[in-house]
């Protein structure tokens, strides 16, 4: 740790190899999304390097890293549970189970949504992105894009409808891929 404080990148590398995997698993417990977990681990290490000179000597490195990660993990859990995309996922999952389809992981769902998003028109995608991922209200979106609130609502409902159609297609494509293998 003293080497790290003196600016040794070698020490930083060693710390990464020692802790990155454990931190990732720790953070993943709160988010269920590998992309979010990866970004948090990145942030933890970038901050460790940035604030290396002001590290507290009296604490162990592992307690230091996990104290920081603990805060991130709690915030990540709150964020995901409150996010509209996660709500969409739960609804989608619920419908899948209702139709006796096999359930999917949140990670797979996010990948599917992103793929499906590319089939939307530009305007639809922007509105869906702002509403679902950035959690802006209809009014806020209308101000940013300089369009009518009604238009926002129309674009959003058309976009979400299209997304749903795309998403419902996927179980079948999955089966087709499996048959081809």
């Amino acid at each position, binding site marked *: 740790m003293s080497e790290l404080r003196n600016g040794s990148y070698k020490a930083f590398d060693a710390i990464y190899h020692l802790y990155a995997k454990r931190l*990732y*698993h720790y953070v*993943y*417990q709160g988010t269920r999304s*590998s992309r979010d*977990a*990866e970004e948090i681990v990145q942030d933890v290490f970038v901050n460790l390097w940035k604030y290396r000179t002001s590290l507290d000597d009296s604490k162990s490195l592992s307690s230091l890293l996990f104290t920081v990660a603990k805060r991130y993990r709690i915030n990540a859990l709150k964020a995901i*549970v409150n996010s509209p995309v996660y709500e969409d996922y739960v609804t989608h999952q619920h419908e899948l189970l209702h139709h006796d389809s096999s359930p999917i992981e949140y990670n797979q769902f996010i990948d599917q949504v*992103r793929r499906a998003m590319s089939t939307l028109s530009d305007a639809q995608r922007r509105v869906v*992105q702002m509403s679902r991922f950035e959690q802006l209200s209809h009014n806020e979106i209308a101000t940013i894009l300089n369009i009518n609130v009604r238009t926002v609502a129309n674009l959003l409902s058309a976009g979400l409808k299209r997304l749903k159609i795309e998403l419902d297609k996927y179980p079948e494509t999955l089966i087709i891929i499996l048959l081809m293998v």
Partner: protein
Amino acid sequence: MESLFKKFKADRLSPEELARFRDELNRMSDDDIQELINRAYGNATDTPDDTITEERLTAMKRIIDIRNGHKPTHVRIPRYLLRISAAAAILIVAAGIYFYIQSARFGEYRQALVRENVISVQRGERATAILPDGTTVTLSGNSSISYSLSCFNSHSRRVSLSGNALFNVTRDDNAPFFISAADDLEVKVLGTLFFLSTHSIRHSSQLYLERGAVQIYSPKLKHNIDLAPHQLITFNTSDGSYTITDVANITESEARLRGDIIASSEPISEVASRLSMLYDRRFDIRPRVADDYFTGYLPGDNLEDVINILGHSYKVTVHENSDTISIDL
């Protein structure tokens, strides 16, 4: 609450349960939430729900290195790279001395404030500069960035770019960061990490955003374009058309940030001309058939690797001399 968390953990919440879980969670203190997670997992971190591969760990580390402004040390640094970085360092120091002498000679702040500072690198070179606000810019391959001190104030920060650069912009919500590029293209940034590449001759610009948010303006556009993290935009500055693609895979994100040449079914002649731009050597690639295509990543700062990759993928010998690299496919 514990049973709800167990269901969350297993991806089995019903919509009604999610609503209950959310309400409860929003009422809980952070300490209680911490305890809830710990109880569900028992303090152990060795029974993971999701395993991360070594490959992703390594890729993640490289992104961290880029964000830390740390360049990985190669086992063997090619001599030309050392020469190039020496040249770039001299250039920057010389620019610094020139600027210092100039400002000292006139002894006037005003002069210094309005003077335009230019940092540029030649083809095949790469250099990192730190701007007055702490933003780091890594220029590669025949690019330059210019700014004057008066453009960095408490309301806004402005630079102009020609060519390619990786930006790690220091966050300042009160002073947005603007980049002007070819054909009146303008990018507005709050604080973020992205790679911007502009070509005034081809009227084509590309921006890959790793994190944060940017907005793109152009007289050719009816409205501004907002980009979300992990998105790549390719923009035609002459007619205003553009495409946005999601970069889902971490290996590609990393390649995008490094400014690698990323080709998918691109005519080999096109790839050759992009390589020539970056490395200041003529790439003489003679395809077997007129329309040979190439798909893959080629590093933007390591000529030896480029030669090895091309040699291996086409199973041919590459002939290299001081100004031309010739390949017969």
